[in-house]
């Protein structure tokens, strides 16, 4: 399969930043999912709703909020810029957009897999003297790991497909912030249909692969 250098570059860029975003949100997603699954705390439903918002809001709305938060005129944006960290029109913007947009999917999947772990098994471990941390790593996670990996794969696929938030926060800059989805948009605008179709094939192929793996993991998990 002979793809142009440009196509490889865009694909590699999308996959690496997508991977980075999945790894970035993994610890936070797992922690939050566990808190949702196992604990009751004040304002829990508010936090649950806020975490879910990027999943249902128009991605451009989320992108606009991120732009306002990280833009050069905002306190945070200015603070980062003074330290040499640029978010807007930069790969870091792509990373943040992907992370925010895929976070709800990760949390939901991992939460479900934690909920499916029989709490009695955790209680038994506690009666045998295990600390909460040990219970988490020795009992909960090994039983839920397929769901965690499935959630991470789903989040990664979502990150790869991100468009609305990415184009607002990071811009559609070839060679700098252009992902597969942004490239498709660009090619269509420029009337370069055949390049667009190539990218389309890649995105469909990747999405199919990762979602299929994710579903397979969920299908083959053990229920306790």
């Amino acid at each position, binding site marked *: 399969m002979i793809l142009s250098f440009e196509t490889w570059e865009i694909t590699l860029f999308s996959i690496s930043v997508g991977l980075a975003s999945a790894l970035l949100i993994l610890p936070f997603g797992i922690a939050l999912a566990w808190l949702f699954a196992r604990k009751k705390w004040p304002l829990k439903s508010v936090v649950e709703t806020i975490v879910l918002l990027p999943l249902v809001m128009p991605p451009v709305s989320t992108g606009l909020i991120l732009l306002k938060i990280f833009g050069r005129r905002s306190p945070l944006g200015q603070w980062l810029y003074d330290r040499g960290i640029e978010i807007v*029109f930069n790969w870091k913007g792509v990373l943040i957009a992907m992370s925010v947009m895929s976070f709800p999917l990760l949390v939901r999947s991992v939460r479900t897999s934690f909920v499916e772990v029989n709490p009695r098994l955790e209680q038994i471990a506690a009666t045998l003297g295990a600390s909460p941390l040990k219970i988490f790593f020795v009992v909960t996670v090994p039983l839920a790991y397929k769901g965690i990996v499935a959630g991470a794969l789903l989040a990664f696929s979502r990150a790869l497909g991100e468009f609305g938030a990415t184009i607002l926060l990071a811009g559609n*800059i070839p060679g700098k912030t252009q992902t597969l989805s942004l490239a498709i948009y660009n090619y269509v605008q420029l009337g370069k249909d055949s390049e667009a179709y190539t990218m389309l094939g890649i995105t469909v192929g990747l999405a199919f692969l990762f979602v299929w793996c994710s579903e397979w993991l969920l299908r083959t998990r053990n229920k306790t």
Partner: protein
Amino acid sequence: MSKHMRRSLSVAAVFIVLAWAQVNAWADEILVSAAASLTDVLKEISTGYQAKAKHNVKFNFGPSSGLARQIEEGAPADIFFSADLSQMDALDKKSLLEPGTRKNLLSNQLVIIVPADSKIVIASPKDLLKTDVKNIALAEPASVPVGVYSSKYLTDEGLWDQVKPKIVPVQDVRATLASVESGNVEAGFVYKTDAAISKKVKIVYEVPVDKGPKITYPIAVVKESKNKNAARDFMNYVRSPAAKDAFKKYGFVVID
């Protein structure tokens, strides 16, 4: 299907038919696809027009290249008002324009703008090479008229290769204006008429008309238009003295 459900469906069907009939009764409405830089001036001109005319004018503003692609794909525009000749030529070549209606109406001037509170000094295009200038907003240089004009100008000045890595391509000239206003880019290329409507940017360099690209805004009726009479009527109004005064007020150069 229960009796109740059948009744609800009939009521819904009647509403849908009535709505469809109503929409068709408004059929004498024209759609004008126009370059983004014409947004404010055309809205003002059409307010004057609709006060006297019988039909509505709806606008579809955007990059002329995108608008031309839409018309090629069958978008129901009645008039196309482009910011450069090449987009109009593209439609002409495909026989999508109503013969005899194409006219060159306006010209404009390219300027370099910076955020109003910018401290960076840009006295000439060469200053765009300064390291302080990290991001330069420009409407897609391969297709959008203002991007094509600007990149051609920078190429003629021998600066394009060095400026290109700093370019942040955006959708159209108004998106360029918005990014400069936001402060997330250090500079941008817009038309003088766009800079004039914003208080959040300042012009630092006006590309001399004799050194810069020749900017021409042509207008034409689209061949597939279903309201050609209404379209011609509005086009005549756009070429009337009253409309020309409005164009001049906004800073456009009238060449018709």
